[in-house]
């Protein structure tokens, strides 16, 4: 059973943005629920109503949503969402093609790719929304990460054994300044296509990087209201400090 929560802004609402978190129970390890929490809080602070739908396997899919999030899981979690993801996959893909913003972390990032090749040689098909291919690995890539992205410097924490390679035309989400990224070799991290971002960064990603939240919310707000995004002027001293301190620790002042 999916659950729906509403978060109202302080003043008159500029509109309602519907945010669907895919499989919060099965696929939200390492605090990934924090991304949804951060988006809902920020949507509200921008003066919009956030309608948050926690989508569980087998329940009705909200194809009218304006924004999607998903996180990482363990093998047992992935197994439990497989059937549902296969069922909603085509719809998700057409929504992505239509420009709906989505943020998929770790396990869900991998599932949004073309395929996953296990250590045992099995090939598991993905949704093909991002042109990436992931191979299982014996070595885990773990540690704090700093990226240069088109939205500015982004910090987070990676923890994955899958090693991901981008297709030839596929843009990464960012360039690795510190950490492993997609595969520890080519300096790329994550993938971005249209308004879909895939990334390995937990942390969770959004709270300390509100510019990524705002980019997603801006698109979602337009889709929700049919009007350009009307942001509130938000001051983020805590997020800025948290992020900049990590940047300094990881890459120094260069």
């Amino acid at each position, binding site marked *: 059973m999916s659950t729906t929560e509403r978060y109202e802004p302080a003043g008159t609402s500029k509109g309602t943005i519907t945010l669907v978190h895919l499989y919060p*129970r*099965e696929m939200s*390890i*390492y*605090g*990934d*629920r*924090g991304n949804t*929490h*951060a988006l809902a*809080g920020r949507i509200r602070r921008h003066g919009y109503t956030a309608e948050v739908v926690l989508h569980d396997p087998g329940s009705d899919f909200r194809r009218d949503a304006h924004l999607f999030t998903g996180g990482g899981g*363990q*093998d*047992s*979690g992935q197994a*439990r969402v497989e059937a549902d993801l296969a069922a909603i996959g085509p719809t998700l893909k057409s929504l992505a093609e239509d420009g709906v913003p989505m943020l998929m972390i770790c396990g869900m990032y991998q599932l949004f790719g073309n395929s996953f090749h296990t250590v045992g040689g099995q090939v598991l098909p993905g949704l093909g929304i991002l042109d990436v291919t992931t191979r299982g690995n014996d070595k*885990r890539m*773990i*540690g*704090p990460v700093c990226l240069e992205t088109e939205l500015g410097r982004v910090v987070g*924490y990676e*923890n994955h*054994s899958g090693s991901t390679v981008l297709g030839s035309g596929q843009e990464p989400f960012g360039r690795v300044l510190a950490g492993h990224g997609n595969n520890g070799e080519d300096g790329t991290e994550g993938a971005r296509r249209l308004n879909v971002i895939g990334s390995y960064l*937990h*942390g*969770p990603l959004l*709270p*300390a990087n509100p510019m990524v939240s705002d980019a997603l919310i801006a698109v979602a707000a337009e889709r929700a209201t049919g009007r350009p995004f009307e942001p509130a002027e938000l001051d983020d001293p*805590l*997020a800025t*400090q*948290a992020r900049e*301190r990590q940047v300094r620790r990881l890459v120094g002042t260069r």
Partner: protein
Amino acid sequence: MLRTAAAVVAGKTARAIARRRGGGSAFPGLVAERIDPGILRHALADVRGGIVVVSGTNGKTTTTKMLVALLRAHGRSVFTNPTGSNFTRGVLSEMLPQLPVSGRLRSDLAVVELDEAHAMRFIAEVPPTHSLLLNVARDQLDRFAEIDHTADLLARLGAASTEGVVANADDPFISRAAGAVDVPVRWFGLDASIADRLPELTEHDARFDDEPTTYEPGPGDARLRPRDERAFDVVFDDVVVGPVTLQQRGLAAMINATAATTTARLLLGDAFDAATAAEALAAVRPPFGRGEVVMVDGQPLELVLVKNPAGFGVALSTYGTTPVATMVAINDNDADGRDVSWLYDVSFASLRERGVALTSGVRAYDMALRLHYDDVHTDRVVPDLDEALDALLAAHPDEPKRIFCTYTAMMALRRTLAARHGLDRFGEETPA
């Protein structure tokens, strides 16, 4: 066994040097182990009353301390590793000063707390007679990677135990693991009258459709039945231990006491005495950082160690009922867990009304940001721990205070408190 003697001597020497340089470590154990790789096995060869491994995510230290106290109160000599040094070489290092050159420990029993990974190394050397399996929760996932993996390690510990397993009936991971062992299992858990408080203790895992466990306790199984906020009974089918009032507060400590009592009774058999047990539990001082209270300028200051979502959740619900001036100190060194993502799996709503006086530690701003997303106001952010402690004491001189902190933040704060307020020094080691 000249080799063993040489190993013992080398280890003792290394330990003496390490101590002089300030602080023990795993090093002496390593030295001894290099000379005689079988030293741990030899050392425990004459321990006849039981070799017990206590493991699980939360409560190992408290439970081990209680179990040792229960056994000693019954006249048994017990070897144990020092609080928090839950790794194999730490066990060995602690053993060295007590080891005669024969290399064989003269104790009736050995009770060691080991984290899941080190329990595997231990059982590869020495098969425990008994294991006590507490719980499985997400903890320092950057180290163990998956909760399923942690559960599997505990199942292997249970399976390696040669005489008996004591297991948490209310933890689905543990009950699955213990349900599969060949040796007798004794269960501990909450009494049906307080089953609704289970969420305070266990992190329900959505990936399994576990119904709340309903089990019929058999002989030797124990249930926790609180009388009020502080006093409780440990109820066996034929004996009641209690009422007990612990020095440490909260339901988590009570369930730890229940686990320790169940294990003590299994180990002691007919020698177990309910009155002796109740008295021993009441006398146990809270281990360092587990709700330890120190008096500073006439006001209590409580240090509460937090290291994972389940533990932080339990701590907040245990202490949330009595709001005080609060500080949260988060470091991200190896011993703390380098990933602070888990803070987003904790709800801080219970702090909303009163707010938080300070956040501190290396990740002070991340903590304040986390609180901000739960609409909890933070008065000040002061990354430097000593400065933050001063600020807390200065801003809230006339009221009780509480600091939630990660491991290395606690070590640093405790050191400062010891230096400035004449508190006892403590000789604890960093977990590996």
